[in-house]
């Protein structure tokens, strides 16, 4: 079937070669195939992968003047890390509270001991929420911040000005961000774990779904310290992904405000997708 919009056939090519298949399926599979083939034909995917690794080679070179990089790293720790404490606190405390309440309402079984609610809150926070969820939130906050900052520097020729001076702009601008995030994000994860469990405890305290004593017993029960290591390892990888992918999009921005906005959006989307992908890979590698 060919749809007509304002006198133009808008999906003529889509159904043309797919006789006998459900129209909805045709449209979706065609879109996927078009997307993949367009990227492969234009070598778009491989082009970006190559360019990303080329940028990383430029980033990981010997700094021109260590003290300048050190100062820049301290600045980035404040801008990207310490300024994110607030949002991590809010998200973690509410996440911990909601996990506790949902677990409580879904396990109203007399055969299940009530302290399992505390255990569920602790393990959910440590294993998944404090690393993956916080990383996704930080991909939005920090990723868009990095991409828009570098993108604006690119379109206002500030990066060109650095290059003209003889500064390795990629290394000077991106390396301190990567180091700062790798240092500070695991600490935010640990902070999120503590605050999340505290959020669960507060929920118990105010709603009386179980006794606070049972909850505290639950969070101490069958504790496996390696889960914290696992979570921190994941966050280190996520920190690198967020900063490097966002920097890549920002550094290669061009044009004006519109393109910087597009780069910023792409940075968040691509960082989030790679966080989820690496979450699966790392879980399989570390916990299996």
């Amino acid at each position, binding site marked *: 079937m060919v749809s007509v919009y304002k006198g133009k056939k808008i999906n003529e090519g889509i159904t043309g070669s797919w006789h006998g298949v459900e129209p909805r399926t045709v449209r979706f599979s065609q879109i996927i195939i078009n997307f993949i083939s367009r990227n492969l034909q234009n070598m778009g995917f491989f082009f970006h992968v190559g360019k990303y690794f080329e940028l990383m080679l430029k980033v990981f070179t010997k700094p021109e003047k260590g003290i*300048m990089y050190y100062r820049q790293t301290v600045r980035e720790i404040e801008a990207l890390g310490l300024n994110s404490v607030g949002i991590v606190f809010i998200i973690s405390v509410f996440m911990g509270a909601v996990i506790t309440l949902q677990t409580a309402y879904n396990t109203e079984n007399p055969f299940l001991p009530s302290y399992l609610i505390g255990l569920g809150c602790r393990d959910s926070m440590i294993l998944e929420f404090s690393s993956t969820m916080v990383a996704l939130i930080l991909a939005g906050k920090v990723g868009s911040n990095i991409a828009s900052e570098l993108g604006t520097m690119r379109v206002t020729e500030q990066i060109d000005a650095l290059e003209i001076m003889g500064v390795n702009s990629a290394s000077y601008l991106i390396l301190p961000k990567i180091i700062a995030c790798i240092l500070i994000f695991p600490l935010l994860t640990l902070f999120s774990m503590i605050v999340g469990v505290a959020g669960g405890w507060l929920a118990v305290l105010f709603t009386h779904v179980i006794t606070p004593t049972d909850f505290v017993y639950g969070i101490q029960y069958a504790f496996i310290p390696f889960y914290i290591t696992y979570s921190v390892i994941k966050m280190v990888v996520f920190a690198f992904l967020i900063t490097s992918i966002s920097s890549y999009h920002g550094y290669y921005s061009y044009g004006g405000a519109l393109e910087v906005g597009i780069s910023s959006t792409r940075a968040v989307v691509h960082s989030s997708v790679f966080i989820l992908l690496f979450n699966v890979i790392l879980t399989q590698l570390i916990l299996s």
Partner: protein
Amino acid sequence: MIEVVHVSKYFDNEPVLKDISVTFERGKTNLVIGQSGSGKTVLLKCIVGLLDVDEGDIIYDEVIFNKLNFGDKKSIRKEIGMLFQGGALFDSLTVEENIIYPMDMFTSMTTEEKIERANFCLKRVNMVNSNHLYPAELSGGMKKRVAIARAIALNPKYLFCDEPNSGLDPKTSIVIDNLIRELTEEFNMTTIVNTHDMNSVMEIGSKVVFIANGMKCWEGTNLEILHSDNQVLNDFIFANSLARHVKNTMKN
């Protein structure tokens, strides 16, 4: 001295610069003029190495710049000062920090020496007492002057200015033009200025190169430009009716 020898540049197989050869002399304000889209900025970016040339050579005082590796290019770049169209000041740094930045990066000067040098540069561009302002607090003309101060902070041998008068009123433009000329003569720099402002051409153009459609069409001085027979050049510089009237009056 900077020599551009048979330089060509292509974007997607489309020629943007076609076999350009020109010499820019030391101690002179060399102007590159031409319409928007004629290839002036591409030429300037090729000269400073922000774009690679596809054919030909860029020679800085007998050193072929475009054939150097990254490290060797860096040593020449430390002798380059550049004024960008929008100033390109670092937003997160104050005026003083902007000027001190290249000294921080490439010298081992003490803090006092750096501040003293920054104050000297600011005084030279008439921006005294603006040390602690941020770029967002400056007007367009002030940004350009601070950018010039940053460009001369390391006492460069080469100064490049990409449309220094864009967005400025005629009076401020003349102030910037004269500043560029004075600094060029004072520090004996090789200065190349990209512009399409005829006031600048008449004010400071000790050597003028005219580019049209990526080709060099004319070169001479600001005095010779008014008497040129080159039709393309005349169409460009006498584009408005007032200029044509002046030209006809001069002829008569």
